[in-house]
């Protein structure tokens, strides 16, 4: 065979290989796909094996019809796009997606999942199952936010917000909002991790749909996958103080008949657990840096240094009392969402089985000591 013929043969084989070997199985036009941005899970009354799924997708066709000009007309794409919900009853997330696919002409994909909404009435078994399915799926974005609701997840995902509700919920924490205090966000992977971890329990923000927005209603606390209680938004602030995750939030500190306002710049918490013969002692040292927003005297006279120090003491006492109260509330349901048990495990790895089986009780019985140190560093424009 001549060189030229050999080369043509090789080229033909390569071309055939290219045709046969095309990865066209995964090639799909972006317009033929539809990303599921929100999943809501509700229990189905009377059918314990089934769950009611709400799948939310952005509706690009409607968006294009509404604005026929080129591009998005200056709006941020995806943030103000109309949405579409699919309601399916199924036993699992993937089977729900498959059923919903029969109702839509675009292929669903879960790579851009933004929010997962759990109804608080879901049983431990249901929640474990759904979380396992979400974590097992390789393509699901594990950085989606998990929220809970005491209403139905469907109502949350039907809220009349500007952007799709799932995007609105995610944007509360994703958009680098400086304020953190009234909510304790939890991502899907963190929820799963805390539920599986020895010595730590998950928590999830509670949301509720209002007339034209979605409101944070506090924090739902779990023991494993079992919801055991919830904290109000105000208590969530103290919970965040215990975690050292408060920032850029203004709170009013009562001082007898009067009160003053401080803006918490940031807080840090240092957790320790000390086993003693009488039982476990849980220590939480909180350091707070704050700015003064309003004084008791309403700036009628200049502020003195001693007064500022007194304010700091008042803040410390106030936070200490309330943080201890919230911690005792968590103890009452044996939900160690702060991670004392895990820290104890790290320092005493030989006690892994003891911690795994009995930490809830030990946490419930432990003595707590919360100390707060506050420093007011700025007083603003007025003296």
């Amino acid at each position: 065979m001549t060189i030229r013929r050999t080369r043509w043969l090789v080229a033909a084989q390569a071309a055939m290989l290219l045709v046969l070997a095309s990865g066209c199985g995964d090639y799909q036009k972006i317009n033929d796909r539809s990303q599921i941005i929100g999943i809501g899970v509700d229990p189905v009354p009377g059918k314990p094996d089934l769950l009611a799924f709400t799948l939310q997708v952005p509706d690009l066709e409607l968006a294009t019809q509404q604005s026929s000009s080129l591009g998005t007309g200056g709006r941020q794409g995806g943030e103000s796009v109309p949405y579409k919900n699919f309601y399916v009853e199924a036993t699992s997330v993937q089977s729900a997606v498959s059923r919903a696919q029969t109702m839509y002409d675009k292929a669903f994909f879960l790579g851009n999942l933004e929010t997962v909404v759990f109804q608080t009435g879901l049983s431990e078994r249901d929640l474990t199952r759904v979380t396992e399915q979400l974590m097992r799926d390789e393509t699901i974005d594990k950085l989606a936010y998990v929220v809970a609701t005491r209403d139905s997840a469907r109502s949350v995902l039907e809220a009349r917000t500007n952007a799709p509700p799932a995007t609105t919920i995610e944007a509360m924490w994703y958009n680098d909002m400086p304020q953190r205090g009234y909510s304790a966000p939890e991502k899907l992977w963190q929820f799963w991790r805390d539920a599986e971890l020895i010595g730590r329990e998950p928590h999830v923000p509670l949301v509720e749909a209002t007339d034209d927005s979605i409101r944070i209603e506090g924090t739902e606390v779990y023991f494993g996958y079992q919801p055991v209680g919830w904290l109000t938004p105000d208590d969530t602030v103290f919970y965040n103080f215990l975690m050292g995750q408060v920032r850029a939030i203004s709170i009013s500190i009562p001082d007898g008949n009067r009160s003053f306002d401080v803006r918490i710049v940031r807080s840090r918490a240092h957790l320790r657990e000390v086993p003693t013969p009488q039982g476990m002692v849980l220590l939480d040292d909180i350091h707070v840096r704050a700015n003064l927003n309003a004084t008791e005297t309403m700036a009628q006279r200049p502020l003195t240094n001693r007064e500022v120090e007194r304010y700091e003491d008042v803040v410390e006492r106030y936070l200490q009392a309330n943080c201890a109260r919230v911690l005792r509330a968590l103890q009452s349901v044996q939900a160690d969402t702060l991670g004392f048990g895990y820290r104890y495990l790290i320092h005493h790895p030989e006690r892994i089985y003891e911690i795994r089986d009995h930490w809830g009780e030990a946490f419930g019985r432990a003595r707590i000591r919360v100390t707060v140190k506050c420093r007011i560093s700025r007083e603003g424009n007025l003296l």
Partner: protein
Amino acid sequence: MNAQNERLYNLSAFQAIALFSSSFLPVMFWIYPTVAVHYARLDAQWSLLCTVLIGVFISWVHGRLNDRFPNMTGPDFACLVWGRWMGKAITALYVPVYLLFLGVSLYFAISLMKYFFPLTMRMWLALAMIVVAWRGAWCGVEAMGRASAIVHPLTFAGILASFGAILANADQPLIPISFTSLSQTASGIYHLLPLYLGMDLILIVNPYYRHRRGKSEWYPVIATAIGGVVVMLVFFSIVVNLGFTPTERLAYPVQVVIQLIRLRGFLVERLGIVIIILSVAYTTLFLGNHIWALSSTVARIVGASDHKFRPFTFFVAPSIFAISQIIATTTQARDIVTVILAPASWVVVVVIPLCTYLIASLRGIRTDTREEIQPEGRQRRAARRRARRSP
């Protein structure tokens, strides 16, 4: 230049280190935290550290072996030390172990790609990678050394940056320091050694890099130390984020944790997925290195020159592809790693080189007295010392 216009050019130190660095890790990289936590529980970090130290030590033994027999490939000095037939038998033992190891590595790499290409047949993904790796091996060790010198520093920097960021962003960075159980730690070490399987490529690259007394024995050590840093960093970033027990439940913990990187405002937000696909570059290079090395080994076993390795790639590359296709599930692949590759790696990576070195030392067999070795390392230092003492 010789009559075939071939350059008999040696690899520089940088190229050799890059080549060595890209010869191990992929078989266990994606699963080792799970394996470590499964066998060693909360002593996983200790077993990992010990494995790294063993790997560094054994790489030094490899370096010393190489310097003892410069200009000879591993099969050649194995025959010299063990005797001809025993040496060939020992070298032949490497072939099935390495074929299996490479097949499993390819399987794991393709399994990860299936995450992002669920509808594409595994066969095509594997075929694409093995063809590119084959082409690299065909080009020869100098080209592979240059490619490694370009790709490996970028990969290393990328891993340091990404996993360093993941580690820094952990909310509760907690690592147990106390030591719990010797048996668990030993079990972990035993099962983690396949991390360094592939290191024996150092022995076949022996004639291709410049040997300098006192210096070239440390090239493999630098490479394994770099690998060790990567391994420890990735492990810590996984366990401080996920904790120990959840890590044990994940099939590919590295893949899960790397997806935690999200660069808000950047052109590619889910950087983790990009990094996983970029790891394909490292794996392809790794496969190419080993196809070349294994082909050269087989060539030496049958008595052909290691420069004429190309025909043997027709045996090695399809075998690796076939093995990767025979493996059915991830659990099967993990069983192969823990049940077959773990003990095999102890034999081929630790026992055989160590025994070879000891026997060579005891019997006084060495070939470094010829002019191939350049005695610039230690002697130059002595000269400088003398110069300082003179008035």
